């Protein structure tokens, strides 16, 4: 007899009315690492099985009260116990008996007298199969659970989600998607997306996504009932295979668009209402200055200069707010015309230079010799960029100097640099110095009141003009903001 331990130690129930058989089988199975229960008739077998399910039953046929066939039939009739494999062990050797045993639900049949090796081998096989079966059941349960989770997630996602095959037919859609069409069909699956949502822009990005795996294509679409959805389509690929379909997510952004519109309107209106009185102040100041209301003394002229400068600063702030709103809604585009860089710098410094007066701050400019006298660019935006940078430099520099330099860093670019001898900006703050509505530190904020839009606007305007802004600064050593823009000295005639 082999002493090899079993690979599948199991809880085995032996049912036999002869104590000698029970003892022999028990001992043999115990020796091979199994757990054994032994009972002497069918009724006790059923009771034992119901207490705790064994992994396998070795069942004798001829027993008093309830024979093996009957016991097996009852086990197989009960859903709780029917999966436990039953091997019949009997002295009945006729084919008819075996067939009866298999009909009753047995998985195997061993005739007495048995060879111990054969019993062990068959037990091993059936425990192995049972083991495999249990594993499959567990995997199936896991899969069902995963599917349930996925279903729950899909059902509860607020955005509409739809998966279409390369032919554009819906393979899968969540309930949120089903609520998007005004008149949804009863069965979404199998219907063409173009039939349910006949929106050209949407169908375009879905077919674009089909051509390019991985990249996301996005478009905003408006339904006939004025709801606005942001659609993002992504082609699905599997293991490097070509795109097998497209997943499209549709998010209702009607409310966001409305809020955006209201915000833009609000900012535009406020800016308009702020600009009008400033324009009037400026107008009257100029009238006084030019003597419309009679000659002025030098002191009066000086006072007017201060009024003009303050109003221009205020205008700059309002313009920043207005531009921020326009940039956010994509309404701002540069207006390219010929301008003189030297004049630009001179005018800007004239406008706000008075701020530095009396503070001991030296304000100067230097235009490199190789800078062309005229360039193409958006003069007004450049003025705004430079005003913001110089204004900022003056605001944060108590003493020393603010220098504006114009030079050519290379053949195809020109640069506008504003350097100051201010406190400098700590490394960790340099990362967010261009974020809107942010100032570098609260102690400074209290001292220098501002909305924190200046540098953010500057960066956005520079980007809009195709340029780049960089900051070089060290605490205690001042800051230099450098704007590098494409050098355009002539505008090429568009081929007609």
């Amino acid at each position, binding site marked *: 007899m082999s002493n090899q331990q079993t690979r599948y130690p199991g809880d085995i129930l032996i049912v036999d009315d002869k104590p000698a058989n029970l003892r022999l089988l028990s001992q043999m199975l115990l020796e091979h690492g199994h757990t054994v229960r032994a009972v002497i008739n069918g009724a006790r077998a059923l009771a034992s099985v119901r207490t705790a399910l064994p992994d396998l039953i070795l069942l004798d046929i001829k027993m008093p009260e309830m024979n093996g066939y009957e016991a097996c039939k009852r086990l197989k009739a009960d859903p709780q116990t029917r999966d436990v494999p039953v091997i019949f062990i009997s002295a009945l050797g006729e084919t008819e008996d075996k067939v009866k045993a298999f009909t009753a639900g047995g998985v195997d049949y061993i005739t007495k007298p048995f060879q111990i090796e054969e019993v062990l081998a068959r037990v091993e096989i059936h425990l192995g199969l049972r083991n495999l079966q249990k594993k499959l059941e567990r995997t199936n349960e896991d899969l069902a659970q995963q599917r349930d989770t996925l279903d729950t997630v899909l059902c509860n996602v607020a955005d509409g989600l739809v998966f279409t095959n390369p032919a554009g037919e819906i393979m899968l859609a969540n309930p949120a998607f089903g609520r998007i069409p005004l008149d949804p069909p009863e069965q979404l699956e199998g219907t063409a997306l173009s039939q349910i949502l006949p929106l050209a822009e949407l169908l375009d990005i879905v077919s674009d996504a089909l051509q390019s795996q991985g990249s996301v294509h996005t478009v905003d679409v408006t339904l006939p009932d004025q709801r606005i959805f942001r659609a993002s389509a992504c082609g699905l690929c599997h293991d490097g295979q070509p795109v097998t379909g497209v997943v499209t997510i549709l998010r209702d952004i009607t409310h966001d668009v409305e809020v955006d519109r209201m915000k833009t309107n609000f900012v*535009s209106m406020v*800016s*308009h209402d702020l*600009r*009008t*009185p*400033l*324009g*009037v*102040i*400026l*107008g*009257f100041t*100029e*009238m006084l200055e*030019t003597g*419309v209301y009679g000659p002025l003394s030098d002191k009066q002229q000086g006072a007017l200069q201060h009024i003009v400068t303050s109003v221009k600063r205020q*205008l700059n702030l309002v313009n920043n707010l*207005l531009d921020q709103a*326009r940039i956010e809604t994509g*309404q701002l585009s540069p207006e390219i015309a010929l301008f003189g860089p030297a004049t630009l710098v001179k005018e800007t410094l004239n406008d706000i230079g008075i701020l530095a007066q009396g503070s001991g701050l030296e304000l100067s400019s230097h235009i490199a010799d190789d800078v062309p006298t005229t360039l193409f660019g958006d003069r007004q935006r450049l003025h705004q960029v430079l005003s913001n940078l110089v204004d900022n430099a003056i605001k944060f520099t108590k003493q020393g100097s603010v220098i504006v330099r114009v030079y050519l860093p290379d053949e195809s670019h020109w640069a506008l640099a504003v350097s100051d001898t201010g406190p400098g900006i700590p490394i960790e703050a340099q990362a967010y110095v261009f974020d809107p509505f942010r100032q570098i530190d609260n102690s400074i904020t209290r001292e220098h009141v501002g909305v924190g839009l200046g540098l953010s606007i500057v960066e956005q305007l520079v980007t809009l003009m195709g340029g780049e802004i960089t900051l070089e600064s060290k605490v205690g050593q001042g800051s230099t903001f450098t704007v590098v823009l494409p050098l355009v000295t002539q505008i090429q005639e568009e081929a007609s």
Partner: protein
Amino acid sequence: MNKKFALIIEDDVGQSIVFAEALKAGGFETEIIRDGQVATQRLSAVTPEIIVLDLHLPHVAGLDILRQIHADDRLAETRVIVATADAVLAKELREQADLVLVKPISFKQLRDLAVRMGSATLDE
């Protein structure tokens, strides 16, 4: 010889005075109207050389007045200077007005302009 006539349609009192002073410096006789509806009526009676038109008016929108001016053959020679605080609108209106000025409008700039326009019309 009579002075050239400029009509200023602008609801903001201060702004309208600035416009008027700039035009006066250019040798124009000026009249200020602060309401869109009144402006519409007045325009059917007078033939100004210059109209300064604010687009942000009570009762009748500036754009409607601009349309009325274009539709009236009698006003074909009238130069229209549109004043607006809306830079986007200003860009759209370039074709429809002789000049579009974006607020804030410099007094000196408008005065210089008025001086040039005044002498130009006198030369004709």
